[in-house]
């Protein structure tokens, strides 16, 4: 079998009216996005007319920057395999990236599961990352009323806060805090009129074995910060068993996030078994799991593990550690899975010593 470079797929999600289409419109005009296939909801929403150079058939449009737009999204597998076949046959120009726009109400999880597991796709495509737009004006309310919106935030690698020019400053601060609580490891950027640099959107997700070490370092820092968030309520007496549990709780449908740092190598098989168990038993409540793991059998090449609910991406081995810090980082965005259950089961089934699990800086 010939090894083929996997084509990165960026998933663009965001609630209705959150400015997703505006962002997409902007991105499709950038020359950096030449050679991109955009799989969009409807042509009508994206203002393509003046960009169109060719429309060979109803469902496919070729833009003058070399971008291909494609509105078929009933079956992502079919669309992506069809595109790969056309590309191979030369009936469409070569493309090196795919952008999938989900509908506003859509739960992005099925799209991610498809990309992670469909045998037709896994060899040809890889998830590049998930970008979610959040409306600075209505975002907070949407999070309270719509479960899908929380899931969109939870699975995102990059959050684009839109319409910031229309939002009050204090509201924006609160929304930022809310987003950080749901998903502490996603980057956040404020955008106006959809004007976002392609670099802020692409290459986001640590799914690439050749991930730039700057990204890994950044993620490391966010994960560490998530494990040791600053105390906001210093005057609040800490009592009870959950005292050391610095998880971020939100009031959004019981979603919380926390991360663990493990300061000892982890046995590969035991860890894989634990992943199996957590997927089988708590997958539904595991909105997002992301980890860089120091594997005992392979101390020089950390593995990156991504999970979205019960589906785990095959572990990705990085070329090397981005810094001298070789501790494993595990980040969880969950609905109602207490941190102690994660810790206890890691000790019991993944052969992790309790003393190696760090909750706070020494």
């Amino acid at each position, binding site marked *: 079998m010939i090894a083929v470079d996997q084509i990165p797929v960026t998933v663009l999600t965001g609630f209705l009216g959150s400015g997703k289409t505006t962002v997409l419109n902007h991105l499709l005009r950038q020359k950096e996005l030449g050679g991109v296939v955009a799989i969009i909801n409807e042509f009508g929403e994206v203002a393509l007319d003046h960009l169109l150079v060719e429309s060979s058939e109803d469902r496919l449009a070729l833009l003058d920057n070399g971008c291909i737009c494609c509105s078929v999204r009933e079956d992502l597998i079919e669309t992506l395999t069809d595109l790969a076949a056309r590309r191979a046959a030369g009936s469409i120009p070569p493309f090196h990236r795919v952008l999938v726009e989900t509908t506003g109400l859509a739960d992005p999880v099925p799209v991610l599961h498809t990309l992670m597991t469909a045998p037709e796709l896994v060899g040809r495509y890889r998830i590049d990352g998930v970008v979610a737009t959040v409306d600075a004006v209505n975002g907070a309310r949407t999070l309270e009323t719509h479960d899908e919106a929380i899931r969109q935030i939870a699975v995102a690698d990059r959050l684009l806060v839109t319409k910031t020019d229309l939002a009050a400053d204090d509201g924006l601060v609160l929304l930022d805090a809310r987003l950080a609580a749901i998903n502490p490891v996603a980057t956040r950027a404020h955008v106006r009129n959809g004007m976002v640099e392609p670099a802020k959107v692409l290459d986001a997700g640590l799914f690439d074995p050749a991930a730039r070490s700057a990204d890994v370092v950044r993620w490391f820092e966010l994960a560490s910060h998530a494990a040791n968030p600053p105390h906001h309520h210093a005057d609040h007496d800490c009592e009870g068993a959950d005292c050391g549990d610095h998880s971020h709780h939100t009031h959004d449908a019981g979603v919380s996030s926390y991360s663990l740092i493990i300061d000892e190598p982890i046995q590969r098989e035991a860890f894989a078994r634990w992943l*199996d*168990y*957590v997927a*089988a*038993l*708590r997958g*539904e409540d595991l909105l997002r799991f992301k980890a860089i793991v120091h594997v005992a059998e392979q101390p020089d090449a950390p593995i990156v593990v991504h999970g979205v609910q019960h589906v785990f991406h095959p572990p990705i081995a990085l070329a090397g550690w981005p810094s001298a810090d070789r501790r494993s980082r595990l980040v969880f965005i969950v609905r109602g899975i207490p941190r102690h*259950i994660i810790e206890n089961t890691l000790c*019991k089934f993944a052969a992790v010593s309790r003393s190696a699990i760090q909750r706070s800086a020494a």
Partner: protein
Amino acid sequence: MTRTFADTVFRNGRIYTSNRELPWAACAAVKAGRFVAVGEERDVASLIGEATATVDLGGRMAMPGIVDIHNHIMMGGQADLYELRFSNADSVPRIAETLHKAASAAAPGAWIVGGQFGNNLLNEMNTAESCALLDAACLGHPVVLRDDTYHNRWASSAALRLAGVQADTPDPTDGEIGRDLKTGTLTGIMIEAASGLVERALAASGHYTAEMDRAAVARSISVLNTYGVTAFIDAASMQPIMAALKGLDDRGELTAWAVCAMPVVEPGFMFGKAGEELFALREQYRGTHVKPDYAKVFLDGVPGAKTAAFHEPYLADPVRGCCFRGSTMLTVPDLIRWLGRCEKLGLAAKIHCAGDAAVTQALDAIDVVRSFNGPTHLIHHIAHASYIAPDDVKRFAELGVAADLSPIIWYPTVFLEAHKAAMGEERAQRFWPNKDLKAAGALMAGGSDWPVIPIPDPWQGIEGMVTRQNPTGDFPGKSLWAEQALDLATVIDIYTIDAARAAGLGQSIGSIEVGKSADLIVLDRMIFDIPPDQLADTRVEMTFFEGRKVYQRSA
């Protein structure tokens, strides 16, 4: 305000309540099927009105209705009412003779279902000669005969035709279609999964109507009532069983609490929808007294056939060699997935584990599920908790798992003899560590596994748990691991309140307490005053279910 009087008052009894707070009482009053007072004469006197029926117990002992934690409720009644019965000691010619008589009387084209022949006859039946004998006897009727393990069948050529089985039909997975060694022709013998081919044809023929199913279940329950049983778990509930239970309940004719354990996969001896497909139908079968709240998992087979999974190997034999340990039917991750799914659906799992390795695997899986899911009100069962590695005994209590004690073979029986042949005497004897389980705090529940044992008589089980000797007089002077004997009060708990808890009904049945269902039985003797070897002779005089008399022993 008008006074409310009891519907029924039991007086002048020696009522053992299975309630630690008040173990004995003389009287109990019932209103609308529930106990409203339990105590002495003074506690019930004011509840007796003109319309109150009083039952003078005449100093006899009464106790809560018995819970059978494991039986197969359709089979006994079906066999009684509709099947051609012969002994598992009958020869092939004898069986053919019995069949011929039945076939002569049967309506044209009607199926004849019979059992159970000895499974030792399978080889003899699996020949062209025996097949000819069968076909001659059955006079063209489709016939299916079951063996005494319920795992294998002998079918007439007419039955094979209806099942679409032909000479070139391939063997199903986990099954074998019998063929004569010399001629290669079909013999009608259907081993394990092949039985399903014929059983499905029988089911499709409409031979058993819903009405017949209801009558069969009603017959079985009336048999249970005669032994004082007023609640049970059906340990492999397929659709027709649940439909029959629900049908009886809707008609007000169900005389016991029925808990249903729905198989996660089609069992080897019953056929039809299982797992998710069956779970999805569960609410349509729920009734006032029908509780489809358990799932059934088969993890291994039986020790006698060397199909149970053990840590140590069976004795060497020419087929399996020196080191055969049996195996489990599910991996730990598969079992974990099923248990996780069951807990999500609010189903407790009854897990068949006949060998000690199967027990370990089930406990391991439950340990994983508990660790990830946290506490639950669901009580999973290890069924046939009999060969248990010493280290596993304490895990029952630690993990909140119930020990389903069934079938009633905790004393010397032919089963034990087969186990000795399979694994040697010393190991075979370490069977049913009941005392160890009790000492370790396990929740234990008694069951019959009827029709694996021919009559669902809990009194044999009760005596056997106390004496560890065979109450029928077979194997005289022999005991099975006598150190594991339990005292009678503990055993009565195991058959009443503890079994009720294990069945998920501990709040509503299992003891004689105010607020609980008035399930009460009257005995012909004071069981705490007699020698233990007379316990199995106990006769139930009357059985009350929700305060209603559902059995009266004839004089």
